[in-house]
């Protein structure tokens, strides 16, 4: 198995700042907006974006939740490896809010569908947007598209997009793995 680097840490840094600015453009001071990172991998991106918004663009009172979607997935009992859940940390309701769902890679769209169902437990938001770091074009199973994307990638099904973060792998990078 070989892998090719798609984004290095500098590229990721630039993209994160652009995404943060795009969010500010649409959501101003975030007074009626909440960010929700999808556990486990989307939460690194969500935390990073929240830090940039707070520290570099002086957004105060930013609400960030981390949502686990395991129990809402549509492949329960349909896969070989059992599903393991991670923690949900949502200490607010989303009734009447603008929600931005954040995940690292958008592939089939099924995780996002599960997230839309999972969020119903926390109220009826005014609207929901989707932000992803990597958008894998041509691989969607559902009619779901991102509103904010870091980079669009054309990868065939046998290829895998791998995102690593400083927090877990010592460096920020995005790779494409070939079999």
């Amino acid at each position, binding site marked *: 198995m070989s892998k090719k680097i798609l984004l290095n840490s500098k590229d990721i840094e630039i993209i994160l700042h652009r995404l943060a600015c795009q969010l500010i453009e649409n959501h101003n001071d975030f007074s009626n907006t909440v960010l929700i990172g999808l556990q486990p991998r989307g939460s690194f991106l969500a935390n990073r974006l929240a830090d940039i918004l707070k520290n570099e663009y002086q957004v105060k009172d930013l609400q960030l939740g981390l949502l686990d979607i*395991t129990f809402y997935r549509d492949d*329960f*009992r349909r896969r070989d*490896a059992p599903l*393991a*859940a991670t*923690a949900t940390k949502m200490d607010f309701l989303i009734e009447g809010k603008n929600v931005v769902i954040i995940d690292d890679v958008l592939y089939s769209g099924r995780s996002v569908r599960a997230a839309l169902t999972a969020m119903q*437990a*926390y109220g009826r938001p005014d609207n929901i947007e989707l932000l992803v770091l990597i958008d894998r074009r041509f691989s969607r199973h559902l009619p779901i598209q991102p509103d904010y994307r870091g980079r669009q990638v054309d990868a065939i099904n046998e290829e895998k997009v791998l995102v690593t973060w400083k927090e877990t792998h010592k460096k920020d990078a995005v790779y494409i793995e070939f079999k």
Partner: protein
Amino acid sequence: MSELSVEHLLGIKYLKETDIDLIFKTADHFKEVINRPIKKVPSLRDITIANLFFENSTRTKLSFELAEKRLSADVINFSAGQSSVKKGETLIDTVNNILAMKVDIVVMRHASVGAGVFLSKHVDAKIINAGDGTHEHPTQALLDSYSIREKLGSVKGKKILIVGDVLHSRVALSNIFALQLQGAEVKVCGPTTLIPKYISSLGVAVETNLKKALEWCDVANVLRVQHERMDIKYFPSTREYTQLFGINKEILDNLGKKIVIMHPGPINRGVEITSDVADSNESIILNQVENGVAVRMAVIYLLAQQVKR
């Protein structure tokens, strides 16, 4: 590890420590779910569960039913009192008739020891033992350990006392297995007539002096005096039992330390425990009930993962 090593939950004695860990980790997530505004997840939409209660139960049945519904499973209930069991139908026939209606999981309580094991060998469904006679009550032991872990951080190395009618208690036996598996020390206390002879072979010490036993322990799990299972007199009078083995505020105040009080319910207030103790800050009796739903959701969820499509 994210899969149970067993195909059914028949008793704690069939579990490994890693199974208990997995159940507790999963239960943590479900505890968060049942504290949301909408306390339900759609995971088990295509699973059907039958609750077969051949013996009376209120809280266990409610707790299982709630756990199943919070996981979005379809639930059917059966109580022996209103069924063909009274007309002489055998256990296997009753269950096979229910399974013919395409049931995936059976939760069963039965007065006979080993009923769950017997059933698991003869029918094609996941079996969860919700109490078999005086033998095991695995989900109760799991929720008890889960509650201790929640209150004290861990079960390992803790000293747990089980007080009362150990002889007739499936809760006691399952608790002993579960606590020892997790590295706790277990002692029992009660009238010698209500302590089974085999108890020392399980590595459990016996203390007949309640005060000494309470001084030793970190947690006291107080059992109900099961009058309905006593066909002979095991102690002279309820009053004498209460005097020697009843837990009251005075005896706890004189210990010089705080201990956690548990009770699997239903409580005989004023017999094995007084109201002021049952309702005190040291009591985690109602936490046990709440945790019961989360732990049962975890067990059902993990077993349902193994149901073939």
